[in-house]
């Protein structure tokens, strides 16, 4: 019987993947939605900001240009400072809500303003405006506030190709635009967060929907691993997971059918063995009775020596056959689950002594049993086990074998070790010692044992909830240990 592997456990250890999948799904969902929300918000915001700023710049320039176009034709070719100041005043008064302040520079001269204070102008704009032939605009920060400065050259009407003699500067604060942009940014930010949160909810829903069938399949697989072959999963939908579910169901059905067929075959085989054994027992009983009579005859010496020997052989084999059939019946009882324990409070030393005395082994076997050790066990079955172990040791250990029964007890287990100083068990045989019809010497097929002794001993030990193990002692000889729980089931 191969050791029971635990495929269910193996599968379970791989299943953190399910949690991983959910986490990955949520993460990917979150990232995608956050990315798209952020991108959309960022692009919208940047477009909005550009629109706001460019609009104010275009409007301001257009207004300034309109006012300048309306006034500049009256400027003489040699404007006095008063002329320029009057123009600056006109332009300042035309500022309207923008509140721009203007300054004029004639032929690169100093700035002339209507008021006492010149408007803030970035140096870069001034240097570029002296040689510029187009209007210039520059945004800059002045006193932590964004400002817009424009430089608008005025060309002489008569000489439009020559460098513009007059440059009009205007600058104004973009504080109100900054407020608009801040509002826009706040709106973009407050829009992106709920989208990201909503995407988490969606991701969880999607993950749930996707992973529910996976969880079902896992649960079903685990249930099957625990022997529930009638497990099926509910298959809904028509996707890959549904396909997987259908495949699983098909597999489960096949497995169940196979298992049922196997079980039926096994049951038939066992019943057959049991029936054969029972059928053989009655004629064998009769044969045994007859052979006893014949044995007595042979022993009396009234028969020819050859006939007596033949009779002896027949009675011997009949006994062995009876023994074998009895063992077989015992094994079938175990297989059918019909074996039951009859527990009794027993003194172990007495039990072992009785076992040895019954078989006249008390001279050949030494014992090491704590006196007064009592245990709850089925004395008949323990007797069978001990007889098997000791019988085997005596049989295989050689003629001058020394067998020792050593009993040790702790709080919950009692171990009974039967050791000998014989040749031990061959290494290749050691794993199969307790299998049915295993014999130590393959060449010598005809032995006294039925080949079922240790198998029956094992079944008896298992019935007690105990174990039977076989090892070779380091200094030679075999050690077979029966371990029984002090409180059997």
């Amino acid at each position, binding site marked *: 019987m*191969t050791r*029971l592997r635990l*495929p269910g456990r*193996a*599968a379970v250890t*791989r299943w953190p993947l399910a949690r991983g*999948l959910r986490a*990955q799904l949520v993460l*990917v969902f979150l*990232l995608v939605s956050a*990315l798209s929300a*952020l991108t959309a918000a*960022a692009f919208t*915001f940047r477009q909005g900001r550009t629109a706001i*700023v460019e609009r104010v*710049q275009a409007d301001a*320039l257009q207004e300034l*240009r309109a006012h300048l*176009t309306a*006034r*500049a034709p*009256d400027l*003489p*070719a*040699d*404007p*006095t400072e008063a*002329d320029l*100041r*009057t123009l600056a*005043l*006109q332009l300042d008064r035309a500022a309207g809500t923008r509140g721009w302040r203007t300054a004029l520079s004639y032929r690169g001269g100093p700035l002339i303003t209507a008021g006492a204070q010149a408007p803030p102008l*970035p140096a870069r704009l001034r240097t570029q405006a002296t040689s510029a*032939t*187009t209007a210039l605009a*520059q*945004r*800059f920060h002045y006193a932590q506030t*964004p400002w817009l400065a424009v430089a608008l*050259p*005025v*060309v*002489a*009407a*008569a000489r439009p190709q020559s460098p513009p003699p*007059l440059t009009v500067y205007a600058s104004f604060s*973009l504080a109100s635009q*900054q407020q608009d*942009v*801040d509002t826009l*940014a706040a709106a973009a930010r407050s829009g992106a967060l709920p989208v990201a949160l909503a995407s988490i909810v969606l991701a969880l829903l999607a993950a749930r929907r996707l992973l529910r069938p996976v969880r079902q*399949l896992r649960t079903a*697989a685990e249930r099957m*691993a625990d*022997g529930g072959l009638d497990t099926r999963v509910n298959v809904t939908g028509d996707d*890959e997971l549904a396909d997987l579910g259908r495949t*699983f169901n098909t*597999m489960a059905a096949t*497995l169940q059918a*196979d298992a049922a067929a196997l079980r039926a075959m096994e049951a038939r085989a066992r019943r057959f063995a049991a029936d054969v054994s029972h059928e053989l027992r009655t004629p064998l009983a009769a044969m045994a009775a007859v052979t006893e009579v014949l044995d007595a005859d042979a022993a009396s010496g009234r028969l020819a020596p050859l006939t007596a020997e033949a009779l002896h052989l027949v009675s011997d084999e009949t006994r062995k056959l009876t023994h074998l059939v009895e063992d077989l019946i015992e094994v079938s009882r175990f297989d059918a689950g019909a074996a039951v324990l009859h527990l009794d409070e027993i003194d172990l030393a007495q039990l072992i002594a009785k076992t040895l005395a019954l078989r006249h082994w008390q001279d050949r076997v030494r014992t090491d049993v704590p006196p007064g050790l009592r245990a709850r066990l089925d004395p008949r079955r323990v007797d069978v086990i001990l007889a098997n172990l000791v019988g085997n040791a005596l049989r295989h250990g050689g003629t001058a074998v020394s067998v020792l029964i050593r009993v040790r007890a702790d709080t919950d287990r009692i171990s009974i070790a039967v050791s000998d100083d014989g040749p031990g068990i061959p290494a290749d045989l050691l794993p199969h010692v307790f299998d049915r019809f295993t014999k130590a010497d393959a060449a010598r097929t005809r032995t006294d044992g039925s080949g079922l002794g240790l198998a029956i001993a094992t079944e008896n030990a298992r019935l007690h909830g105990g174990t039977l193990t076989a090892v070779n002692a380091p200094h030679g000889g075999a050690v077979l240990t029966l371990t029984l729980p002090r409180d059997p089931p």
Partner: protein
Amino acid sequence: MPKNESEHMPGVLRRMAAVMPEVLMPDVLRRVAAVMPRVLCRMAAVLIAAATLAGCGITDTDALPAGQPARGGLTENSSRLLRVYFVTPQGTWPVSRPASAGDRLRQAMDALLAGPTAAERARGLITRLPSATRPIRARTTNGRVELRLPWLVRDLRPVAVSQLVCTAAAVPGLGDDPVIKVFEPGLADPWPVRCDESGSAVPDEQGAPS
């Protein structure tokens, strides 16, 4: 003989366990899924960094071209121009007109009384002077301008007085900041008035109004 059916299970289940993730996430998808968070993270980081670094405010720029220059007069010298003050929404504004030979003051006063031309009106210039049956008599004596008005000053709007005074003061040859004596019909004493920097008539403090 096996008593427990689970003995048949290992192979099948192992295959199932191997197949299930395969079905859920084909190889390519799994690789994509493994790489995607990293890529997405990087993209998101770049985007967030860009969004925050760019700042949510208005950014500074270089001095950038912003259209054609404006076109204006700047052709005739002031000596050949007649400066006549009309009114814009932003105050008085001296209009330039070509001057002809002769008495500049008279020409200016006539032009003032005639009002802005159509082109000047189109540029937003108006006059606040009422129409008059008689002309404004103006003359220069000893470098001082005397204006004899056909109206009483109190009947005129202040801006109209500014028009009169500043037009008279703008006549060349009167020196810097001349004082204009304004005579009203029926009143003997003139008002000494000047034209200030903003093009408004102000009483002359130094003069002795009587």
